[in-house]
């Protein structure tokens, strides 16, 4: 009967809202869509009808999804969920081992575009080979000298082992940067397909 039609109208409206609110963080967007959905339910309950006319009237009064998204837009969208210069600088810096990290990690921590959990994963992922490397090195050098001895200490020349550790360290930074870049893009993309 009319229910199919009604659901299609509402579903289409909510999809448009999701798309229009693409610039919001995922959490904010989900909340907004849930609130509007609740409003539609309440309004239909109040109207005492759920036929096509009732649904169209409720949606009409709500206004265009694009307008609602725009009202939610500027103040919330700019600080969170969007890649700005800060985020791009952070990612580029993270890809440069050691020196870059000194700049990149504080920038990542400063940014509001990533959630706390993503920041932690990204930074730990980037640094994980360093921790691992340090662990292996100390274990390996335990008998030959103090921890953190310079590389020109006799007996610890640059061999294939050191090269591969260095490679891993560089790779780690890249993986961390790529992870953060992916998280940034995931948040910026419309999520209409999940509806």
């Amino acid at each position: 009967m009319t229910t199919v039609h009604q659901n299609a109208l509402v579903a289409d409206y909510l999809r448009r809202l999701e798309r229009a609110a693409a610039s919001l963080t995922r959490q904010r967007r989900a909340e907004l869509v849930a609130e509007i959905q609740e409003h539609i339910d309440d309004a239909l309950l109040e109207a005492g009808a759920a036929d096509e006319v009732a649904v169209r009237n409720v949606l009409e009064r709500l206004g265009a999804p694009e307008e609602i998204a725009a009202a939610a837009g500027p103040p919330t969208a700019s600080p969170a969920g969007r890649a700005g210069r800060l985020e791009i600088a952070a990612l580029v810096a993270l890809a440069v081992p050691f020196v870059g990290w000194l700049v990149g990690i504080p920038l990542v921590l400063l940014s509001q575009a990533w959630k706390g959990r993503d920041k932690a994963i990204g930074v730990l992922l980037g640094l994980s080979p360093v921790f691992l490397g340090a662990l292996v090195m100390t274990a390996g050098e335990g008998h030959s000298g103090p921890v953190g001895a310079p590389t020109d200490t006799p007996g610890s020349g640059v061999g294939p082992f050191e090269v591969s550790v260095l490679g891993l360290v560089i790779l780690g930074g890249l993986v961390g940067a790529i992870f953060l870049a992916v998280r940034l893009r995931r948040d910026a993309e419309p999520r209409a397909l999940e509806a």
Partner: protein
Amino acid sequence: MHCMEPGGTRNSLSQLRRGAVEYCVLALLREGERYGFELVRKLSEVDGLVTSEGTIYPLLTRLRRDKLVTTFWRESEAGPPRRYYELTEEGREALAGFTQEWARFRDGVDGLLEQEGSR
């Protein structure tokens, strides 16, 4: 960037409306907590105040973020729990400040508009 357009008047009116609606929400909460749909309905009853009901929800989020209101969930008699909005002390102060300013602003603008209109 944007120059004055034919739609400029409409635009500034809608900005004025948006600014005022915020405080109307706070005023509606003065006597006690209300849930989102209830607030939207009350606001829509005022002629010319709200053009798109849906835009109230982002506004409520902003008020919460600015700590002018707090929210909590409460079971409803029918259907899922509802999110209720409640005025904070900060919100109460903001409302009091606006109420004073608004009276001055309204009287001033009215005075000018009437004066200009009768010339």
